[in-house]
């Protein structure tokens, strides 16, 4: 499966260094989160990967080749970029027809991707009348036109409402399950934490971390129960590390929420709430991205 590799990638804008000697690998067939605060150089990195911005040094390769060297780029890489736009007077279907024609793809692909992103009903309306979520879906449809093995998504969750966000997560999971390599950027870890296998974290243009999510920090589960002491000893017996955060609430590491629920049910312990918190992940993310010179 096609992966992405970034080597020594650097971009200067005048005296500002937007991306500074960045190097990481995105393995094929996995979902990789590309994380960092706003202004960390994520968008510039993705635009260099896609051949839109010329690196000052280094290279970004897709399956070992630069974007410009891909013979039929739409069939290898699909991208949804923040700065991608649509002509407001053009119909959604026509936007896709133009891309399909330019890429030498058959016209039926337009109908297929419209169905996939559930935009068929609105396809013959002008894009000027689309909601933000519909534009996002049109962008995704464009990225999927050539059925590419690699998908690059720049801040796809921006501006989405909770329902749109849930739909996006479902779609990303489905696309990943089809064996695609997905690189998705975000400035909010929690948006992607449940969806990604690996993370690449950048701050101020430099790499802070690259690896599996599990290495970033352990996920914790918050449990509320009137029988806190009983549950704590039960979980500790199973190798969990339990911290009492209140009279009836526990923070648990090393045992996941599903397991906690199952164990409590077996022992007849009533739970008043059970939630997977990203606290540890979030803390690690903040530590990695704050004050990059000292971290």
């Amino acid at each position, binding site marked *: 499966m096609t992966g992405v590799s970034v080597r020594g990638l650097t971009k200067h804008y005048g005296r500002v260094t937007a991306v500074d000697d960045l190097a990481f690998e995105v393995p094929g067939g996995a979902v990789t989160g590309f994380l960092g605060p706003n202004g960390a150089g994520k968008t*510039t990195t993705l635009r260099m990967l896609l051949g839109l911005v010329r690196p000052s040094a280094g290279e970004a390769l897709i399956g070992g080749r630069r974007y*410009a060297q891909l013979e039929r780029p739409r069939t290898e890489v699909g991208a949804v970029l923040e700065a991608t*736009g649509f002509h407001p007077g053009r119909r959604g279907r026509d936007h896709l027809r133009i891309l399909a024609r330019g890429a*030498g793809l058959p016209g039926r692909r337009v109908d297929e991707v419209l169905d996939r992103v559930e935009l068929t009903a609105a396809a013959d309306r002008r894009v000027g009348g689309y909601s933000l979520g519909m534009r996002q879906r049109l962008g995704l449809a464009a990225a999927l036109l050539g059925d590419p093995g690699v998908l690059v998504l720049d801040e796809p969750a921006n501006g989405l409402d909770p329902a749109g966000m849930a739909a996006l997560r479902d779609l990303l999971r489905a696309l990943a399950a089809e064996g695609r390599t997905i690189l998705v950027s975000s400035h909010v870890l929690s948006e992607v934490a449940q969806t990604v296998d690996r993370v690449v974290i950048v701050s101020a243009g430099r790499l802070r971390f690259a690896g599996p999510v599990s290495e970033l920090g352990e996920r914790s589960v918050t449990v509320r129960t009137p029988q806190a002491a009983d549950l704590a000893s039960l979980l500790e017996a199973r190798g969990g590390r339990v911290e009492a955060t209140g009279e009836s609430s526990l923070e648990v590491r090393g045992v996941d929420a599903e397991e906690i629920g199952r164990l409590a049910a077996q022992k007849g312990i009533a739970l008043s709430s059970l939630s997977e918190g990203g606290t540890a992940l979030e803390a690690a993310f903040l530590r990695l991205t704050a004050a990059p010179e000292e971290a």
Partner: protein
Amino acid sequence: MNTLIRTEFLKLRTVRSPWIILGAAPLLVAVGISGLVSSSGIDARNPAVKQSDALAHVGLASLVTLLFGIVAMAGEYRHRTITDTYLTTPARGRVVGAKLVLCAAAGAVSGLISAAIGLAAAAIWWSAKGFPFAWSDGEMWRTVGGGIAWQAAFAAIGVGVGALLRNLVGAIAGALAWIALVEGLVGQLVGNFARWLPFSAGQALGAGANSSQHLLPRWGGGVVLAVYAVAFAVAAMSVSVRRDVA
């Protein structure tokens, strides 16, 4: 290249602005001819206006095709469709080349339609004023032919201007300012070289017999305008290949 030109054609066909712009050219020609005839005091005893002067309006409508070319290119930056365009075709020079070819062709078609409408308008006015319309007037046909070429060349130059400036509003304002004011001011500075400037070269190509201006010969205007079009095309392609798309 054929695929790219057809893709560009589909882009123009699927929005309304190109049609509106192209419809404006023949309309302006008809209005211009009507205004000239009705204001010149032409009547059965006083043939004050030559047929070629009426048909010189075909070339003047090249202002419209200049805007057409600018909108076709800079409009992609305005609506940020340029990202998807270059993701589909990373060879940017070929994209700009396809736009140049297509817009020059669209300019020529606009010129042909403008010529047909202009000839019809002139013939109607002439017969209304009691003059026979001389279809064999060679000067008139050279003016018409020059006007069509002027429209085609300005459409291509418009693509070049749009690719170099990228800002749609700025490019349109700049182009209009050049034609309305700047070329005249520069012309005064450079004296006799003024006739080598783009709009003057276009006028040499498409002006009628009565033009009082000091212009290049018709063929010379054509050559100079072609050189401008090629220069803008080369600059547009090389700059588009190098610049970042952000």
